[in-house]
């Protein structure tokens, strides 16, 4: 068996700007990689994909040199293939289930998906399949709230079934976390624009600057003739730690930090008007993908010393391995088994340091991970002038507050029927991070698709 093809990456020294780091396959690499697929009779890989991409079929089309066909097969199930090929945690999804994963070298499904989608974008400006799959009656309408991966997928599926779909987004640009969270060097925004444009071409009307719960409420949508409402509002509320000094100047939530840079393009200040201030030394609290994104962004904004501060050990870091490696290559330091205690400031409320404490691993806790415990007398000060808090998000509050009758679970997320994804309000469905809590792009898409299917059933227009 030939070894797995390594994707080319921007050399470390060249990663000073916001150019994409992963460079994709060449045609030779793509073919060689696709040829590694064993074309299993009962492929496990596809079962690991929440939208059920027919993986062996698209790989075979690549082997035959028919990339257009491969792209179509991808599109049948996945409306955002260039995005998913870049950001899916393949190692725990499709590739994790690949038969070759047992030997440690699964077929690089994600990289090949990216290859096909990029090829199609460059070569035939492919429009999405429009095969009508449903029997919507003329004038039947559905409303989608939130334009993240869940909302985009649901909107596309409903439009393909013939419904008139309006997608309402609170911000001035569509995409959810794809737009404001994931940085340019991992997911270029012109790719996001392109794939959203394709969904618009299916007939989805995208309405920015509509905050549902404020500009319009759910009952308004029904009275405007929408037969069903899908909520994909995401988990956008940043958590803070409640540390002393957390409101000092120079402390950001990862959301604010990344939104200023991605949505508002502060990295091009003053050409763009929104500023961002990054000091010389930055501490990022947390060790998930969001923390890696914030740390790698800080490096690119000119910080000379960026540290990840995490209270557990390397093995427990929730970020994808690939992102940890990238972060290390870019010179980010890892302060592991380190618990932040207090943000220290000067007389102008400007951050001066982060007081921390060293930890050691004790007995396993409820989550099965070994519980970190403080090492006595181990407090020390990390000298930093900027702190980014990346310790998770909660449910976005606005829609929930304005609909007090919407049933929530114990953590405050929207509760849905596990089969239909309908909330306790008839005709109102929900999926994505607003139901599951912060998860992944592809999980949100899979659930968005499931919700679309049950909306079609609810409206009596499934095929």
């Amino acid at each position: 068996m030939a070894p797995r093809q390594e994707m080319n990456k921007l050399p470390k020294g060249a990663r000073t700007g916001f150019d994409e780091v992963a460079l994709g396959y060449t045609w030779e690499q793509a073919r060689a990689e696709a040829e590694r697929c064993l074309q299993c009779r009962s492929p496990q890989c596809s079962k690991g994909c929440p939208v059920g991409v027919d993986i062996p079929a698209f790989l075979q089309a690549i082997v035959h040199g028919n990339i257009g066909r491969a792209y179509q097969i991808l599109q049948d199930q996945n409306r955002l293939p260039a995005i998913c090929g870049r950001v899916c945690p393949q190692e725990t999804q499709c590739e994790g289930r690949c038969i070759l994963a047992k030997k440690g070298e699964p077929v690089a499904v994600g990289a090949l998906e990216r290859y096909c989608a990029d090829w199609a974008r460059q070569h035939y400006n492919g429009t999405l399949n429009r095969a009508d799959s449903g029997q919507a009656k003329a004038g039947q309408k559905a409303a989608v709230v939130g334009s993240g991966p869940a909302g985009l997928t649901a909107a596309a599926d409903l439009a393909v079934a013939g419904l008139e779909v309006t997608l309402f987004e609170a911000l001035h640009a569509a995409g959810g976390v794809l737009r404001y969270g994931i940085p340019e060097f991992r997911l270029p925004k012109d790719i996001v624009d392109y794939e959203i444009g394709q969904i618009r071409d299916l007939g989805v009307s995208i309405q920015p600057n509509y905050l549902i719960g404020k500009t319009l409420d759910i009952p308004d949508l029904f009275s405007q003739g929408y037969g069903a409402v899908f909520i994909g509002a995401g988990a956008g509320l940043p958590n803070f730690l409640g540390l002393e000094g957390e409101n000092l100047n120079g402390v950001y939530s990862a959301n604010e930090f990344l939104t200023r840079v991605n949505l508002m393009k502060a990295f091009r200040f003053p050409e763009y008007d929104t500023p961002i201030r990054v000091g010389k030394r930055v501490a990022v609290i947390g060790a998930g993908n969001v923390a890696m994104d914030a740390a790698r962004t800080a490096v690119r904004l000119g910080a000379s010393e960026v540290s990840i501060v995490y209270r557990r050990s390397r093995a427990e870091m929730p970020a994808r391995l690939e992102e940890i490696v990238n972060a290390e290559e870019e010179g980010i330091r890892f302060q592991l088994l380190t618990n932040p205690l207090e943000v220290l400031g000067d007389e102008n409320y400007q951050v001066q340091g982060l007081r921390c404490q060293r930890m050691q691993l004790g007995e396993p806790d409820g989550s099965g991970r070994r519980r970190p415990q403080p090492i006595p007398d181990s407090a020390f000060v990390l000298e930093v002038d900027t702190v980014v808090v990346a310790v998770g998000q909660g449910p976005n509050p606005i829609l929930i507050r304005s609909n007090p009758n919407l049933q929530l679970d114990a953590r405050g997320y929207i509760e849905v029927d596990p089969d239909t994804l309908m909330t306790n309000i008839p005709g109102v469905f929900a999926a994505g991070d607003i139901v599951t809590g912060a998860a992944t792009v592809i999980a949100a898409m899979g659930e968005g698709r499931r919700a679309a299917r049950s909306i079609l059933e609810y409206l009596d227009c499934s095929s």
Partner: protein
Amino acid sequence: MNILRKEVLAQDIVRFAVAAPQVAAKAEPGHFVIVRHKEMGERIPLTIADFDAEAGTITLVCHGIGRSTREINELNEADAFLDVLGPLGEPYPVRHEGTVVCVSGGLGVAPMYPKAKALAAKGNKIIHLQGAQRKELLIMTQEMEAISEQSAYSTDDGSLGRRGFVTDLLREVLAGEDVDEVIAIGPLPMMAAAVDVAAEHGVSSVVSLNTLMVDGTGMCGGCRVTVDGQTKFCCVDGPAFDGSAVDFKEILKRQPFYRDMERKSLHRCRLEEVG
């Protein structure tokens, strides 16, 4: 989002009537909007200073203090805002309180007006106190007087009304009248002082905070303030808060965070104006 009317109220202070039927239909006193005036522009929060659901319009009053607000003030009738998002924030709860003193400083009268108007309509007695640096900056006085039983003014230079701070007027009113509530909107030091004066007289106070904001939807946390020892997001929990619970010291320190960079941006903007 078309600008239907533009009116210069004072130097650097402009009032716009903007066509925004969706926003106007839902607007209540205390709400604000976030606007962008061009593709590369910032998201700028502005209070809904008046609204007319039938006509489908909202009124904005913008003080040109930095690059974006100055550029906004250069927009003309028939120009349009690129984006108007709203109405945002928690509306101010308009109840029958009895006698309410409305203390406005500088541009604070713009966010004050819709609240005072709604309070007057509910049968409250409005005492209107307004201060500014100088006479020309005392804006919207006619609108306020039309709904107030009593009005008094102060200027820093004595060019109109009492020379001094508007909080001096507040102190006098509170000494002589039975007052049920004080609303104070204006520069932070003025609001902080008004809250203290009200508290000295055992009167509760409401303030409206204008923190830095990015999204205005509860997503970034950049607008956080400490109220009653707890972190609140000004865009979704406010912008109005119980004055005595607000940690003004912290807000005063957070406000200038971007000052150096804003100067750079403004400088560039002026260069562009020249060349």
